[in-house]
């Protein structure tokens, strides 16, 4: 019984500790990569601005092409040690990426769907558009998913990428 108590105490302390961490990290929007990763990542706008940028195009509501510049999603996942390329086989093919946004919006991708060994489509986490930072109602980071009929997965105000196994209960 004492052991049980002890475990609960330690458990709650660690929970508080971990929550405390995420609280301070949240004050300025930053990007977290968590879940099935080799390394938990938190990238600030500045960290991201130093990474290699590419351009992706998305149509706006009026059907006009708009340029976005940002970091390829795969580079960010690679930095966190998420399985990519040759490692994406066997059970790793049942892993998914959950994108979480500030307003609670969530969209999902299978890891294979976003990997360059499976597809030529390059999804980016954009931090600027047509030469200026993203407006704050959509930024500071927006996912740009080219080539989809609906823009619903090109989500605004992205805060976190979570990698998990799809495990049916």
């Amino acid at each position, binding site marked *: 019984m004492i052991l*049980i108590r002890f*475990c*609960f105490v*330690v*458990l709650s302390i*660690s929970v508080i500790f*971990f929550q405390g961490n995420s*609280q301070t990290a*949240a*004050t*300025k*929007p930053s990007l977290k990569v968590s879940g099935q990763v080799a390394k938990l990542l938190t990238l600030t706008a500045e960290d991201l601005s130093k990474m290699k940028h590419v351009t992706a195009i998305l149509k706006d509501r009026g059907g006009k092409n708009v340029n976005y510049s940002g970091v390829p999603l795969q580079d960010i996942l690679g930095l966190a040690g998420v399985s990519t390329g040759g490692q994406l086989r066997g059970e790793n093919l049942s892993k998914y990426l959950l994108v979480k946004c*500030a*307003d*609670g*919006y969530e969209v999902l991708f299978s890891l294979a769907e976003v990997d360059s060994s499976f597809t030529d489509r390059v999804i980016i986490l954009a931090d600027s558009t047509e030469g200026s930072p993203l*407006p*704050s*109602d*959509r930024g500071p980071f927006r996912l740009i998913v080219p080539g989809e009929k609906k823009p619903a997965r090109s989500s*605004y*105000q992205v805060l976190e990428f979570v990698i998990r196994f799809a495990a049916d209960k």
Partner: protein
Amino acid sequence: MTKLFLTILLMGIFLISINALLGSKVSPLYEIKYPAYFGDRIFIPADNTTTEAGVKLGRMLFYETALSAGNTISCGTCHKQELAFTDGKKMSTGIDGSLQSRNTMSLANLLWVSNFFWDGRAAGLEEQAKTPLTSPHEMGQSLAISVAKLKKIENYPLLFKEAFASDSISEQMIVKALAQFERTLVSADSRYDQYLRGEYKPTKSELNGISLFYTSPDPLKNIRGADCAHCHGGPKTYTELFQNNGLDSLPSDRGRELVTGLDIDRGRFRVAGLRNIAATAPYMHDGRFETLEEVVDHYNEHVVSNILTSPFLRDRSNTLNGKSLDLPKDEKKDILAFLNMLTDSAFISDRNFSNPFSK
């Protein structure tokens, strides 16, 4: 560090499941029934499965005035069943006579909610319950005093024993039982549900209301809509999102920002579920609108359009290059007809949810 944490976490989960197993032996599990179209994205913590005895106890505690300082109010004072667990007031009055800072929320279909309150600050019903119980402006009594009082009231020691297989009463058990009861508050028998089940034929106005509610307007293609479902989406009329729906240009209540510290969250509040909405006036986090007509007028004509307002409420219009929804009177009436379909009189009069102390 992570390894140690994981080990402890696993041990914790293991112990919790053992507890749960022991618990379920004592009282049969309570089956919460809901339609398949609500989906299974429900939230029940592993250490608080819903049992018959737990729900029975939780219902009594929900209406128990001994949980307040001075024994005068209970959860049921502000959350009245006949008003879908609201009280019709702009701001409810607490034990110390002071007004709450936000409008009392309806309690229905909480099983699908994971972050409670208008700003989502409480993760889980168990944690949520501690606020009204102990806040000096609500029921104003520490959990320790509540435990001591309940121990002395006839029946409670036995009811707690049946619910938690324990000879004593703890603070945690009080909030767990309350949470179990609240999870059973499922509202799924409105005229809209009867329509979804194929048992009710909506009027023309109701049908058009449903269509407007779910459709995004596109004047170029002559598609009419109000796009309410973008936020209040699906048959539950609820998605767990935090949005700024354009009430004020300078929000006096920072809402979600108070929880996250992010200025992009200023004036964002949790999207409200619209079940039983005709019974839960006044509306919005500050109860500013007295009628649903005013709410629909807000969305149709008065949305404040600035950088804080959800992009999904800006520049959506039924007229080309229009700046507001621009729905005429009869279409506004159709939306109201749909909102009125969401009243569930079976829920509001369900004997399983009523005050067990009043005959």
